[in-house]
């Protein structure tokens, strides 16, 4: 990829996307962060990357395995391999970035961490990284997301983080990001904002991608060693896009490897302009160019440019924007932007759980919903990133399954009386 594409040139542009659309008060912090990113992360100054790699191994549990899914392979008459980010400490890929940024904040001399969270996975990962590195930490989370991802709320609090509910709007990730930016605008001098995906102003999209690139670097090597050669297709679910960018990065130059970013189709595509709501979170597939949270990218908006509320059964994909580099890679046709709806996601959730013994996050489940529906269009050897585990989603899955068309769900009656879970 050219430097323009990968954003390493330092201007933070991916074609027309990217940039730094933030209040002036934050601009000096972005300059400082860009400098720190280039020196510590890209330049390994003071052995930053060495320490990070060691902590990712000893605290995070890297490398995560790549394993063959025997049952799915038989079902789809393909070789299906699972990259197991669900086994990363905290239960999702998010820790790669959270640990990287909290450590970077420490190297930068910051004294406090703020972060937004949707599914709670980024918040949990950040809270864990902050506890591990002894940094005070505050997490903003939408009220609706707090209600649907309670186990993660408790985990953050147990890790010593303050969880601050965000009540404006629909109370999901979009509002949480806006609110965290407001905190940061107030505290920017001693505080680092650990953004949770490849979104936001430069250098976040590049830096977050860089922290997650370890996923695909490992997977590519593991595939070569365990299977031989390269996979034909690599699939990952996409909300903001950190999971896809991390899972795709090392394969970007391998032009024979098809890359699929699976978005949340929710209950239907398109935008209801009158209600100001999209019943989906498919900004790559159906969004239009706009400026959100500091970057120019694809967003879900009405014709005036008002950002609409997105929807997905999975809190972690429930976002109206997407990372600028991912948007660019889709425009360039290097990445296929696809999506499946809530039903398919729940079906994927149950299928992986009861045929492979891996309970995926509802976010991750979208990738398996896609595999089920479209495996015939894929090549012989498929790698899917299991971006997170589903422990946080048990309640939601049990509640939502009967409301959806999920032919492979187990008998849900045995889950009755789960209100008190």
């Amino acid at each position, binding site marked *: 990829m050219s430097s323009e594409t990968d954003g390493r040139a330092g201007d933070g542009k991916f074609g027309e996307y990217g*940039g*730094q*659309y*933030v*209040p*002036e*008060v*934050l*601009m*000096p*912090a972005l300059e400082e962060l860009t400098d720190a990113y280039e020196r510590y992360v890209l330049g390994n100054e003071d052995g930053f990357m060495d320490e990070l790699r060691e902590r990712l191994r000893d605290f995070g549990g890297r490398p995560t395995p790549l394993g063959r899914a025997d049952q799915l392979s038989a079902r789809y008459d393909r070789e299906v391999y699972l990259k197991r980010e669900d086994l990363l400490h905290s239960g999702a890929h998010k820790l790669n970035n959270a640990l990287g940024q909290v450590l970077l904040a420490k190297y930068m001399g910051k004294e406090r961490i703020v972060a937004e969270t949707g599914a709670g996975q980024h918040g949990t990962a950040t809270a864990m990284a902050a506890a591990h590195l002894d940094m005070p930490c505050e997490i903003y989370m939408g009220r609706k997301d707090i209600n649907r991802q309670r186990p993660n709320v408790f985990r953050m609090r147990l890790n010593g983080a303050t969880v601050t509910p965000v009540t*404006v*709007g629909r109370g999901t990730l*979009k509002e949480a990001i*806006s609110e965290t*930016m*407001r905190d940061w*605008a*107030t*505290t*920017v*001098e001693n505080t680092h904002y650990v953004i949770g995906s490849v979104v936001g102003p430069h250098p976040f999209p590049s830096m977050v991608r860089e922290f997650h690139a370890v996923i695909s670097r490992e997977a590519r090597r593991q595939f070569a060693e365990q299977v031989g050669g390269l996979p034909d297709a690599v699939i990952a679910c996409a909300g903001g896009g950190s999971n896809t960018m991390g899972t795709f990065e090392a394969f970007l130059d391998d032009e024979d490897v098809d890359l699929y970013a699976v978005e949340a189709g929710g209950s239907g595509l398109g935008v209801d302009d009158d209600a*100001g709501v999209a019943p989906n979170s498919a900004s790559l597939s159906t969004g239009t*160019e*706009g*400026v*959100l*949270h*500091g970057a*120019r990218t694809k*967003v879900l*908006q009405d*014709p*005036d*440019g*008002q*950002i*609409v509320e997105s929807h997905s059964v999975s809190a972690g994909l429930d976002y109206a924007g997407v990372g600028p580099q991912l948007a660019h890679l889709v425009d360039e046709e290097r990445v296929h932007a696809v999506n499946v709806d809530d039903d398919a996601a729940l079906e994927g959730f149950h299928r992986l759980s009861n045929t492979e013994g891996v309970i995926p996050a509802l976010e991750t489940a979208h990738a398996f919903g896609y595999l089920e529906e479209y495996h015939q269009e894929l090549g012989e050897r498929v790698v899917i990133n299991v971006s997170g585990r589903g422990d946080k989603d048990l309640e939601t899955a049990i509640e939502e399954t009967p409301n959806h068309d999920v032919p492979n769900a187990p008998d849900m009656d045995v889950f009755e009386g789960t209100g008190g879970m």
Partner: protein
Amino acid sequence: MGVEGAFGSEPAFVPYLAAGDPSVEASKAYVEALDRGGADVIELGLPFSEPIAEGPTIQGAVARALRAGMTPRRYLGFVRDVDTEAPLVCMTYYNLIYQFRDETERGGPDAFVHAAADAGVEGFVVPDLPVEEAGPMRRACDDAGVDLVSIVAPTTGDGRLRRLLEISSGYVYVQARLGVTGARDDVSGRTAETLARLQQYEAALPKAVGFGIRTGDHAERIVRAGADGVIVGSALVDVVADGHEAGDPVPDVADRLADLADELKTGAVRGRDPGPAEPERN
């Protein structure tokens, strides 16, 4: 007269309200009341769904205005209809400008700036458009003969400050403290510090200070510290919000706004008074 010309011999009073809060009609009355109360320039908010630079007060105003149906196109009608002497500056976020399409389907900053200028807007403040990304907007404003006001923050270092002062026109919006908009009960130590720093720059442009000003007394002290004008948003929005919540008649709320405007303008003017400064309070 233009925006810059509104900063005359007297220190300027620059109020902010969100267009359409809590309804188009009421909002029009309120903006006109500010004009009556002595506004020199009026920052008229075009509400955006993600107002990341605003505190809870202005977030509330924006939400009410959106609920009342305010859109970019209706905003232009509002500007046309509202009857003020003070020049209007459009305060909004970049995505609305970026998305705008005029009848000819010409889009983006160029289309919006011209359409707005046609309606009577004389300048723009776009909080999420830093100097680095401001090129297209700056060119459109130059082309349309209107101003693009830059914001200077307490964190802005010397290098950036110089670039901001260079690119800004109309006035410079001096953000008096860290954070987002919102009225405060004091003038922070940070305000004085920021103003002191600005004194070193002998910029040609007027310097209007905002973020946290609530009373005539605040305004006075800000001007005394060197400001050419005071920008007041949340304190005024509070009056609108309280009136709306209490269900007060629009003219009553408008009168309160005019009164507060008068207090703020008077305070600002007092700050230019060469007499001895009042002793600092608390």
